[in-house]
């Protein structure tokens, strides 16, 4: 098993951290993981992205050619990475921001209005964690508790946010599970 992820959005949306949390969760399950950010001549307000690979075996190149799962937080990310999607891939979007996802072949598109979902639980900073909840619900990579444990561990130095983070995760999970 080797899964290849791209997390992409505007700089400042926390997209690199979102990828890092997923890599962290993989590492905690003793998988081989790589995380690498794009860091060329990026500019504020431009697009940022990172690549995550999770595998049972030693990982070769950390760069992605064919994407299993694309997490897109803005429109340009979809346009940029759609051509690289695997035929049976998943595109997960924050539909509060991304309004128009072009359909292509058998690619599954999972839309979650993460901004609104998080407003409902009064935790507007939780959109990325909410997206991770949605990711947990639409893939069978790890059990739900692995994600919860991983999120808690990642934010171990900020215990005051544990409850809110897990609520955001649950809200994202429930939204997609119900779909």
């Amino acid at each position, binding site marked *: 098993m080797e899964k290849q992820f791209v997390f992409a959005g505007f700089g400042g949306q926390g997209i690199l951290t979102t990828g*890092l949390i997923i*890599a*962290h969760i993989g*590492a905690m399950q*003793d998988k*081989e*993981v*790589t*995380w*690498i*950010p794009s*860091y*060329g*001549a990026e500019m504020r307000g431009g697009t940022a992205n990172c690549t995550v690979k999770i595998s049972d075996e*030693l*990982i*070769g*190149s*950390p*760069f992605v*050619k064919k994407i299993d799962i694309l997490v897109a937080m803005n429109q340009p990310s979809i346009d940029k990475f759609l051509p690289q999607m695997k035929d049976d891939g998943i595109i997960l979007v924050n539909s509060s921001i991304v309004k128009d996802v072009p359909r292509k072949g058998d690619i599954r598109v999972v839309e979650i209005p993460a901004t609104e979902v998080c407003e409902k639980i009064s935790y507007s900073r939780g959109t990325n964690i909410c997206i991770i909840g949605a990711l947990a619900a639409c893939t069978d990579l790890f059990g739900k508790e692995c994600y919860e444990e991983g999120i808690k561990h990642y934010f171990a130095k900020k215990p005051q946010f544990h409850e809110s983070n897990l609520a955001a995760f649950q809200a994202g999970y429930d939204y997609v599970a119900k779909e």
Partner: protein
Amino acid sequence: MRTLMKGNNALAEAAILAGCRFFAGYPITPQTEILEYLSTRLPEVGGQFVQTESELAGINMVLGAAATGFRAMTSSSGPGFSLKQEGISYISSMELPAVIVDVMRYGIGLGNITLGQGDYFQAVKGGGHGGYKTLVYAPSSVQENVDYTILAFDKAEEYRTPVIILSDGAIGQMAESVKLPEGKEHDPNKFEWTLKGKDDTYPNGRKMTDRIYYDFKYTEYDPHIRDRYSAMEENEQMWEEVETEDAEIILVAYGITSRVCRGAVKAARANGVKLGMIRPITLWPFPKKALHKTNKTVKAYLAVEMNACGQMVEDVALYAQGTPVYAYPSGRVIADQEEILRIVDEIRAGTRKEAF
């Protein structure tokens, strides 16, 4: 338990674990995290961190710290690494141990902040003046950043030489799971050759200058230098072999490029093509023993590296002893697995031009 760490941070932590208590350097992408990390971590363990006014000051402060027996390190990239070359030559001439990290970026001059492998010649062939050599380690993962940084400090002292860690923008910026070993305590006063204070007189306390002036008779110096470097060359070659035993064609690649090649070997084998890889871990000394071992059986070597014209390929050709050598310098983009396989097909079909 393994923890997820960024390559640069892991390298910096490894220096701490190796007993390094002095760092002086200047920020430049993509190695700045090393400074950033050590700026808080070194004071925590009673060490000294200096963000110097320039790379020149950084390397020369490391020279000073090394002269007193402390484990000392500096790091840079691109033009900043160029500025350190004079200092590396001086550290070599004084025969002091130090670790210098180059997290390679791409291109000539200012170049680009993205990853590259353009500093092979500079690191391996003596980027400074006078014909010194340094051990050069090329890590290909975050774990190896840890392992070879620790080894670099040990080897630097064993041979009293500067040691270069030739990382790159990808290995520095990526995060992977790592296992950190137990830390070591280093006693800076355990050596005979260090400066220890005003009461220490020569020859017990050295004059801290080029050894050519005081420590050797006129005719003794050159044999000493030759012995010194041939010992390193004989004893310190390190490499990894991947599926080389029955290989028809062998890829030679280091650092980040070797990871793409590992994938290519796997894909080729799945198609019944007998592809293997030699991955130099030390770039100097170049693992010529690995090539000498396979020269008899292999039909060709393909050197894959991330620069415009090919650099390491010259060393591959030097030790190939007549085995045909081909080059795939991938330029400013990382080597492509399919392109490697395509070139391997060309070599097998006899349509690819040899590198030299």
